């Protein structure tokens, strides 16, 4: 059999394979040059970028939990200006798709970063991290409410001509409503999921392990929850889905693809194995060969006669 076709398209963004690296787990990409050729990736998503540099939360920032980890990095990043001046030029030499992850504490901050990215060469798309508290709305998380998500999406949509991916928070009652709001406001794709809010307690010290008290749970523990949300959103919107949450292997990626994701992101796995995303992409090629599938696109949402879930477990 000829080599299977791994290429996919997220709207106008063409990826040579459906495996990207997730925001906050791949630095600005350059940190991984000792381990892989960035051209082997479907694409990379940068660490979240804000208008000005952020020093992040005090330590402890991370703790391992069963099959997962909590992080409360506090969105430490170099800021959009340093990114554009130092990181992006270095990335341009590499034949890969760069997606800039963006966040802010106010609508104006999101817009500011989107506008600056709009003029930058070498950015293929913007991914909005909406799992942040809106300091102008009493700390309500932008992405935890359809109306608020619609507002921020609309503002960013106006601020840039770049393809816009809205990265959904899973800490909501009905993620379909949020996804629909993103679609209605012109998002080109939704990516899901961001981390689940969690907490670990050091029982000897009788205090939270993390200085921030809560953190975001990622890793294999959340995979069944993320796969379910992917499957739900697939039935709610028609724009492409970029799925993630606990992907460690090609088999895991296949769960998301069959559930309806056109592409996937590998996050926590990069910490454990810096080549994880490449290994997943190569594993997908092997899987397609073995199963005689010509293109990964045939598998997107290809669950055999998916019945309807009845609800109560």
């Amino acid at each position, binding site marked *: 059999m000829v080599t299977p076709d791994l290429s996919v398209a997220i709207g106008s963004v063409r990826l040579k394979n459906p495996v990207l690296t997730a925001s906050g787990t791949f630095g600005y990409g350059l940190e991984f040059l000792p*381990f892989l050729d960035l051209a082997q990736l479907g694409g990379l998503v940068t660490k979240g970028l804000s208008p000005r540099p952020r020093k992040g939360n005090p330590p402890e920032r991370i703790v391992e939990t069963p*099959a997962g980890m909590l992080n409360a990095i506090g969105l430490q990043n170099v800021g959009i200006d340093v990114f554009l001046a130092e990181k992006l030029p270095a990335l341009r030499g590499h034949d890969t798709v760069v997606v800039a992850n963006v966040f802010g504490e106010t609508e104006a901050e999101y817009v500011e970063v989107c506008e600056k990215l709009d003029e930058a060469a070498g950015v293929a798309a913007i991914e909005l991290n909406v799992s942040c508290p809106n300091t102008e709305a009493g700390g309500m998380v932008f992405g935890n409410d359809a109306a608020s998500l619609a507002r921020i999406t609309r503002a960013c949509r106006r601020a840039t001509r770049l393809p816009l991916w809205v990265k959904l928070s899973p800490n909501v009652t009905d993620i379909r409503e949020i996804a629909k709001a993103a679609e209605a406001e012109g998002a080109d794709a939704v990516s899901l999921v961001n981390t689940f809010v969690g907490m670990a307690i050091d029982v000897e010290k009788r205090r939270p392990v993390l200085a921030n008290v809560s953190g975001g749970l990622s890793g294999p523990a959340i995979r069944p929850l993320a796969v379910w949300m992917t499957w739900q959103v697939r039935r709610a919107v028609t724009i492409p889905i970029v799925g993630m949450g606990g992907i460690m292997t090609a088999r895991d990626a296949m769960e998301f693809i069959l559930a309806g994701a056109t592409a996937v992101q590998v996050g926590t796995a990069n910490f*454990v194995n810096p080549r994880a995303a490449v290994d997943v992409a190569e594993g997908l090629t092997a899987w397609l060969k073995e199963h005689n599938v010509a293109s990964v696109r045939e598998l997107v949402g290809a669950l055999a006669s998916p019945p309807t879930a009845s609800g109560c477990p």
Partner: protein
Amino acid sequence: MASPMVQDFTTPVLRNVDLGRGNWLLEFEAASAAAEMRPAQFFMIGVPGSDVLLRRPFSVCGLPGTFSDGRAGAVQILYRVYGRGTKLLASLGPGAPLHILGPLGHGFTSPQDKNTKIVFVAGGIGCAPFPAFLAELEREGRRATMIYGARSADELPLLDWFRERCDAVVVTTNDGSLGASGLVTGPLEQMLRGAGGEQLHLYVCGPTPMLKAVAKMALATGIACDLALEAPMACGFGVCLGCVVPTHAQPDGPVTFERVCVEGPVMRAERMAW
């Protein structure tokens, strides 16, 4: 950014020796990674196929030549069984595969001035980076003095090894079961007071409260002091930003958060913004 010579490889356990009291010495082949590795640099170590998600950081304890019974091209780590990851390590026999990333971070550098007196201050398993460092100093024709503390006489791995090779090893235990009763800061204070005009350089590794206490004394007396820091780590190569400590990256600058895995694990006492 990870140094370009960092390597990610799978290699079998050569030896995994139970030193008693929960302390173990693990040996594996790492000739190529060891070639440019410095004392107090570290490895991230995982067990392929296990359910412990993240690799764990361990200082290199022995580089080729450090231990007379070490195999050619092999390195050693000294570890204490603590939680899931170290329990899993202790269960491995020869031949079991290890998933190794390294060398990582910045290690110890010996003082330029050959007359400077080198003092190791170690707390318990914090002695781990000193064998490789001592061997290097010996190759340069230099010597070291050690202050070695722990909660009790049980928790002083490799004590005999250090006693054979250091100019002096001053032992302290919290419970007085060996050496002076109390903390390493007791003998250290005496040493600083008795130093006269002699230049000292402290190399410190152990629990964070000990590092803080020693750093404070060093700063107060203006003595050079390098700390080998610890922090929880997810990646070990600079990308998760999980391992930061508060520092003054610029002297008298604002407090910044720097990564123990890249900017450390060895940092100058004056850099810390504890």
